[in-house]
């Protein structure tokens, strides 16, 4: 649905986007994820036609909407897409229905059709009771729904969302996330979704594009990115991560045996003896009280326990190294207690430090 190649955008002397390659299949949600300043919103605005890139190409479906080389730059009003802004951009001088009808008016649809489709779009977002209300008297959550109805009423094939949930409170955010996914399935839309919230990205996306400093760091499905990241930044950014520096002491069959502060681990990889890698695994990949006979069982002292309601956040400490894990609250380890755990070799990931000359 969206194909981007070689996209570069500069503001003055600052390069915001560098040589972006991206491909979003139709009928799916692609999430642009990254810390603030990573260029994800700028990329979205380039797709919308609100910014003009300096190089590269953007194709929406079969249509080439931007090409620096061929001097094609379709204005936003001719790209046939919907967009939800972070600030919602609900026009305060119009009613709710007036806001939603606007895209249809600009397509010069007949009056009866506009009424019907506005009603349908408002029903879809659960706002049909407020159609006649002035837009400036709405709450944040309601404005968000107006913006959403307005974005889908023209039945675009592509919907762009720029941090649409970031101004809502936590409860409403979780609810809207589910509604958004349902709406997308019902309409068969493609969504390009910008967020800095990794939880939102994991929950919504079919595919995540992780960005930093104007570059794409890694692209992949949420589960794969979460559990088997190829870059340390991905591992770090997507959620609670345990990193342990270590030293390869031997290669046993398919596994490398690595010595760390917490004891020995195995990882499914081939590394020369004496290499100094960094071992990575997620808290949920740690198996507590492994059955006897498991290769490489570690033992560590509990240093802190934080009660989080549905789980406990536990920190294990050994020297200046720490590991975090999540426990069921039924189990109440005391600080000072020793815990035994193991990490299956196929779930432990190795990051090699950058080559130092």
């Amino acid at each position: 649905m969206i194909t981007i190649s070689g996209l570069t955008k500069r503001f003055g002397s600052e390069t915001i986007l560098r040589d972006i390659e991206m491909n979003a299949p139709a009928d799916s949600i692609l999430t642009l994820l990254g810390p603030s300043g990573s260029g994800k919103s700028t990329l979205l605005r380039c797709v919308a036609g609100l910014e003009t890139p300096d190089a590269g190409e953007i194709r929406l479906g079969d249509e080439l909407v931007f090409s620096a080389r061929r001097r094609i730059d379709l204005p936003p009003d001719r790209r046939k897409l919907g967009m939800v802004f972070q600030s919602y951009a609900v026009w305060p001088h119009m009613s709710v229905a007036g806001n939603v009808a606007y895209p249809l008016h600009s397509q010069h649809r007949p009056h009866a059709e506009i009424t019907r489709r506005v009603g349908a779009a408002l029903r879809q977002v659960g706002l049909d009771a407020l159609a006649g209300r002035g837009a400036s008297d709405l709450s944040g959550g309601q404005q968000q729904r107006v913006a959403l109805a307005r974005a889908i009423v023209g039945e675009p094939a592509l919907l762009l969302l720029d941090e649409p949930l970031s101004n809502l409170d936590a409860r409403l955010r979780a609810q809207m996330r589910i509604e958004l996914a349902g709406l997308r399935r019902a309409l068969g839309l493609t969504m390009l979704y910008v967020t800095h919230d990794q939880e939102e990205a994991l929950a919504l996306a079919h595919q995540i594009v992780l960005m930093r400093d104007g570059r794409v760091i890694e692209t992949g499905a949420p589960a794969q990115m979460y559990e088997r990241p190829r870059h340390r930044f991905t591992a770090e950014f997507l959620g609670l991560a345990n990193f342990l520096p270590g030293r390869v002491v031997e290669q046993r069959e398919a596994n490398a045996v690595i010595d760390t502060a917490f004891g020995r681990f195995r990882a499914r990889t081939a590394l020369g003896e004496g290499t100094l890698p960094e071992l990575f695994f997620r808290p949920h990949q740690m198996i507590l009280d492994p059955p006897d006979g498991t290769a490489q069982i570690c033992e560590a002292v509990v240093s802190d326990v934080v009660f989080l309601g549905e789980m406990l956040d536990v920190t294990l400490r050994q020297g200046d190294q720490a590991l975090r894990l999540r426990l069921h609250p039924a189990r109440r380890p005391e600080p000072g207690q020793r815990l035994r755990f193991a990490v299956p070799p196929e779930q432990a990931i190795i990051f090699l430090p950058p080559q130092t000359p």
Partner: protein
Amino acid sequence: MWLLGALLAWLVAAPIGMLVLAALTADATHMPASRAPGLGAFARAWLDPATWGVMGTSLQFAAGSCALGLAIAALFAWAIERTDVPGRRLLFIAILAPMAIPGMIYATAWTQLLNSSNGLLNVAVTRIGFPQPRIGLLSLGGMILVQGLALASHAYLLIAAAFAAIDPSWEEQSRIAGRGAAGSLWRITLPLLRPALLAAAIYFFLVCIETFDVPGMIGLSAHIEVLSTRIYWATHPESGQLPDYGVASALALLLLLIALGLMRLHRGEAGRARRFVTITARGYRPRRVRLGRWRWPLLGLLCAILVPVAVLPLFMLVWRSLLRFYVFPSTAALNRLTWFGYRSVLGEPGSLHMLANTALVAGSAAVATVGLAAAIAFVSVRARSGVAGPWLRRGALLPQAIPSVVLGFAVMMLYLMLPIGIYGTIWIIALALTTKYLAGSAASLIAAQMQIAPELWEASALSGAGAWRTWRLIVAPLLAPAFANVALWVLIHAIRELAIAIMLYSPASSVVATQVWALWEGGQMTELCALGVLATALLVCLLSLPALVRLVRPARRGSAA
């Protein structure tokens, strides 16, 4: 607090009461309060068909100049605030430059540009080969043109903020929804700006209804009267006749009522405008409309508009001030240039006296206004108890709606009747100016004071300081920049103000504004333009003072003002 109330009553209520009294009791042969009250003056003033003719002219004049001024201002505000037109900083300075030219001087410059016998533009047009154009400046159209052009920079200052406050994502959303750039401007940007533009339109309509400068100077020669000049001429009849203060008061009350009504309308619209401004809490980067190949044509258009707004009047003023008799600008004319005008303006024995008067009047008005406004702001913001605070505030804001001519006239009658002995001195002018600018000063000092967090006072009170000590040690230092700005604002306006001064001056209390009026009546163009250049130069210095101070001493505090 009661002292303040009494002061306000003296400054504001007494003149208005005087108007009512005069309207009820005075006529051509009776001074106010010298006979039994009656409604005769109202009948003579309000039922006279001539009054309605004047009223119609007033409305046409105000509507026309308001439309012209706002159209120019809106175009500049949009271009400077919302597009990527080149040279925005210079355009900003250029559109504001005419503010330094007092209205009466601006009008003078235009009489030289467009008078039907040898006006520069008329002559230029005939030289190119067109027939002599028939539109002279001495017509209602001419008055509208000059007032509209003079208004543009003031209107720009008022509406630019509204253009800057438009959230760009509102426009972007419209583009995404399938409207082109022009369609989005028409359907989204302009409707969003409508309350702000309407509020500005009402405000400047009021300004045009009450203004005296352009109708006084051009209208005098063109024999066209508007309401404000009608009031003046009713009090200054041709020699041999006696002024009818009853009719003048009734007319003044009519103008006052119109002004109060417009002010009310303006408040309502301004409130609506604030509701629209930036609903988003998040900061946004101001994004500008990319004009592409229209950048340079737009710049060309703006520069073309600046020619009549700023370039021509300024050039004409300087050129005429250096010539004893007008000649069309040419290199041959250069050797006729003379300092005669400046020498006679500055060299005359009375002129030093006049300049000293001006400085004294404007300076004392500025000091008195700021002092009074600061006291009102302090009391009305702090006084949570009682009803006096809001009343005080309302009373202080009322003079904003009193037209200068009306105020000048009312103050004149008041001190004609009261034996205080300031009639005919410069102090009566200073007093009227203080009343006139009290409203604007109080409004801006109240706003500044509201920005001081209440904890700052409370902390001072808890540390054992009384109200006066808190004001002196906490509030006044924080508000010092605001005080300075307001004082400067009063100073500038007091120098420009013509209507109040000509109502109240006597030969002994002549100031720059009245001197301009006298030179105009006497037809002494060279001296008039020279004085105009000097006054403009002085105002340029005063207007750029804040920028200079900021340059020398960078802002220390982010808060207040």
